[in-house]
Structures are given as C-alpha cells and as structure tokens.
C-alpha cells in the first residue's frame, strides 16, 4: 500500500495537469482565433475594397 506522500503527489500531479493543461489549451485557442480573425479581417477588408467594383461587374453578367 502506497503511503500518504505518494497519494499526495498523485493528487497534485492530477490537479496541475488539469489546470495547466486547460490553461495551455485556452491560450493556444486564443492565439489561433486571434490569427484567424486577423486573416479574415484582412480578407474582408480586401473584399470590401474590391467588392463594389466586382459587384457592378457581376451584375452585368447576371
């Protein structure tokens, strides 16, 4: 039978894993979303700048 210190170590490793792992996951998600949003906004800005010209061209085709 393991002693109290072993159980204590297992419990703390589990808690550090949960809190650390989840925090790491959230920070990664935050970075990923920031990059994707910046890219999407850049695309949107580009589309916004050319969108009016494209739409007037395409309206003639339609």
């Amino acid at each position, binding site marked *: 039978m*393991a002693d109290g210190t072993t159980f204590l170590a297992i419990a703390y490793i589990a808690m550090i894993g949960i809190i650390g792992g989840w925090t790491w996951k959230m920070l990664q998600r*935050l970075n990923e979303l920031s990059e994707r949003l910046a890219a999407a906004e850049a695309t949107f800005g580009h589309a916004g700048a050319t969108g009016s010209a494209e739409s007037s061209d395409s309206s003639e085709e339609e």
Partner: protein
Amino acid sequence: MGRVFTNLAVALTIIGLLLASITLWLGFTWAPAVNPDDWAAPEAYRILFWHVPAAWASFLAFTLLFIGSAMWFLKRKEWGWKLHVVGAHLGLVYGMCVIISGPIWGTAEWGTPWDMTDVRLNTYAILAALSLFLVVGHQTQGDSEESRDTFATVGLFGFLLVPLTIVAIRIWQNRHPGPVIGGGSEAGLAPEILAVLLFGLFSFQVLVIGHAMLVWAVNDLELRLAKVQMEIDRR
C-alpha cells in the same frame, strides 16, 4: 472585446498560476506537519492547500453560471449567455480538480475513495457532473434560443446544490472533514496552515477571475470570427 481585456486576462491567469505555485511551495516547505496520531495519512493533509481553494473557485464559477443563466433566461441578455458558458467551463475545470484530488486523499486517509452516505461528496459530484453536461451540451447542440433556454434552466436549478453542498458538512457531517474556514474552534488549524490556506484561497480567486476573462475573450473572438466569415460569404 479589446486587446487590453485580453492582455489583462492573460496577465491575471499567469499571476494566479504563480500565486498558486507559491501556495504549493509554502504548503510543502513552511506549513508544519499535523499530529500523526490524529490522522491515518498525516502527510496527505497537505492536499487541502489546493483542494479547498479549488472548491471555493468552483463555487465562484457556479455563481457566475447562475447569474448568467438567470440573465439569459429572464432578460435575454447576450452577456448573460456568455457568463453561463464561462461558469460552466470553469465549474468543470475546478470541479474536476476537487473530484479527482478528494478521492485520492480519501484513499490514503479513509482507505476508500468515496463514501456514498456522505451528502457533501454526493451533492458536489452532481454539481461537477452538471457542469460536464453543460460543457458537452454546448459543444454538441446547435446554438439556438431553445437550447440556450434548456441549458440555462439546468444552470439555474443546479445552483441550488451550491448552498446545499456548503451547509451539508455542518448538518450531516459523516466522513468529510468539517469546514476549515468559519468552522469555529473545532477546525483547530495551526496559524501557519491557516495562513497558507488563506493565501491559497486568494491565489485561486485571482486564477479563476483570470480564467473567466480568458474564456470570455475566446468566446468573443469566436463570435467575431463567425460574424466576419458570414460577411465574407455574403459578398
């Protein structure tokens, strides 16, 4: 949501993690040992330096869940729904810490990981299961007004378990140790142990606030990204 808010969320999270690490270090190096005659596994008592603060942090998370659920259900506030999501996530994270560390300590001290006759253990387990249901539900169900109403209702009624869990130990104490804060002279904690525990409680409150802001910021970015993508698709 501004860059300042996101930076503050990251900063508070890092500060919270640092403070929690200091708590752990103090708990192992500065807090004295307990009387070995009073405990089956005296060294394992040091679990309380994170176990109790994690439980308090989860209660704050469940309070956010309740406020968010109420604001969505009664006032249809979008921020209420965001708060509901934040509370559910954090309730699960901190709830898991409590639910996993508790039985490990129980195995060392009681010789059994769980006591089905202990009310506090069971009500807390239901609370943690409720947050798991909500997090899984948010990820698997489509985001509609109906699904939000259902989850908000679960959040509202589930919160009833928080005061029940808190008072359970005073009314039906069975195996779980009595309250260490506000437990009167029976708590009997050495001043150093109490000081580290209070520092731990403060650390985890900082951490849970940082985490709450982090989830809020992630949520906000997801919504903004979805909006921009919809605009792009429309053109």
